[in-house]
């Protein structure tokens, strides 16, 4: 059996992970499981930026994939970056296996406004589906309501839905048919 693995990197509240697990299953119709493991953060931490290198973490995630892992999604509270960018909401391998999402900048508190747990859960779900969507070969979608629509600002995440438009949904189904899933 093939799985979408959700791997928390550091501390993530359990209800968030369970909600994400259920939603990913509903979206991709693929069994989803939560796998916990340790990470060596010293190699990916940049003290000058006080951020964590997303690509380095993604590499650790992929290297740990099990034979049943179809896709792997890392979820973290850490603030992610890649050298060329100041920050990232998430990173994914286009048509690959791994993706990673940071909750750090999805918190309302990051922008100096009161925390909203429900909103945060929704944002995490949308970004999780979005980054996993890239691993299914999807590129950014022009449909403003589609979850694959690009999110430059956190408000953009709130504007889109947690669902694929029919074209992106077709692409995911097509990908799965190609792999006999």
């Amino acid at each position: 059996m093939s799985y979408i693995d959700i791997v928390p990197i550091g501390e993530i509240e359990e209800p968030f992970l369970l909600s994400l697990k259920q939603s990913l299953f509903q979206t991709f119709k693929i069994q989803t499981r939560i796998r916990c493991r340790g990470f060596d953060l010293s190699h990916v931490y940049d003290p000058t930026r006080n951020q964590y290198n997303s690509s380095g973490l993604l590499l650790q995630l992929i290297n740990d994939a099990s034979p049943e892992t179809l896709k792997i999604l890392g979820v973290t509270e850490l603030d992610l970056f890649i050298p060329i960018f100041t920050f990232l909401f998430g990173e994914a391998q286009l048509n690959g296996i791994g993706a990673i999402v940071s909750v750090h900048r999805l918190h309302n508190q990051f922008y100096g406004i009161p925390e909203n747990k429900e909103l945060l859960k929704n944002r995490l779900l949308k970004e999780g589906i979005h980054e996993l969507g890239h691993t299914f070969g999807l590129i950014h979608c022009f449909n403003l309501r589609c979850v694959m629509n690009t999110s430059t600002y956190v408000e953009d995440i709130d504007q889109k839905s947690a669902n694929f438009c029919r074209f992106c949904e077709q692409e995911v189904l097509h990908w799965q048919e190609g792999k006999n899933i």
Partner: protein
Amino acid sequence: MDNQSVGILIVDDEFSVRDSLYNWFRTEGYRVNTAENAMEALKKLQESQWDIVLLDIKMPGMDGIELQKHIKKIDKTIVVIIITAYATVDTAVEAMKDGAFDYIAKPIDPDKLSILIRNAINQRRLIAENIQLKQKVEELSLQDEIVGESPQIKKILEMIDVVAQTDATVLIRGESGTGKELVAQAIHGKSNRRYFPIISINCGSLAEGILESELFGHEKGAFTGAQYKRKGRLEMANGGTIFFDEIGNISTKMQMDLLRVIETKQFTPLGSNKILNVDFRVIAATNTNLEKEVAEKNFREDFYYRLNVFSIHIPPLRERPADIPLLAHYFLKKYAQSMNKKVTDISPEAMKILTQYDWPGNIRELRNTIERALVVVGKKNRIEKEDLNLHYLSKPNSMEIDSLEDLEKAHIQRILEKTNWNISRSAEILKIDRVTLYNKIKKYSLQK
């Protein structure tokens, strides 16, 4: 432009930068490629079309500034965005002076990159639209051709080519209907001012007060009836050309005003206290003998010399009969197309009449004759002698005219055409009174 049709080339010597940006742009759906140095970039630029180049300034070998110059030589419409470290912002600004669209500092804020790329695509689209519009303008400016192969016309075409490249004032002379405005348009269309308007004003058809207001414009309330502010033709011609048709017909006061405007390129709209600066080229046309008018003190000598910098004389059609068949076929093709008629030829008999006639109304008259013939030609595929309705217009010595009445009818028609159906003027020339002329028109069923 959808993302998939936009090509982005990333040029940076650092693998991590190339790789990160490559992946980022791919997820955005762009067509993307990378180059690690200037030579590889130039090779890829030669191989295929790129819309945006993201260019690192500091690279071993040829740096970004130098590479940008080469890129602009290959395709000056490519949008170049400079990637720079904070320490080299000054150099990035320098690159922008050399034509870079913008620069972005490392590490890049993804928000800013998204906006920058969107703006760059818009810029690229605007450049493409601008090129298309310029092509369209060029096509439109060539729509009405100057047709003819006679030595006189060839000489005029040469003169147009020469004078179009300058900003010299041109005086076009020739009888009514010879195509003076067409020559003015051709000069404008071939000049560097062609992307700006050519504004025509018929000085002969407007009363002095109206002409003044038309030319200079006016403020609201400048005179009775000036309910709104109005831009004058001189202001509208800014950057382009102003064409004064029938310049010989303006008053001496207006000649003085225009002389001042042409010399200073400044004027004040009626009712305004603001001086406007304008930049236009002047082309004037006349069928009046200006030298005679100057001698008789009806036309200011200084204004005459200011206009007569470069003179083009268009000979009447009767002096270049070799051009008549060409022109006739040109108008035949043009009007057959617009009227959706399948008329493709003119019979030898009809052409004989066309070439024998002396065309007092010149090309305009020939054009109207062909247009009229196409209306009456019916379902035939060529114009016949009878379609021309020119038997009364043929030369007086034509063998086809066999009665005094025919001669009178043809002569009256000719004079009417020559005066553009000005009854008083025609009556004066024919030395009959206007009532008699009206009776003759009725008798011979003459039509405009």
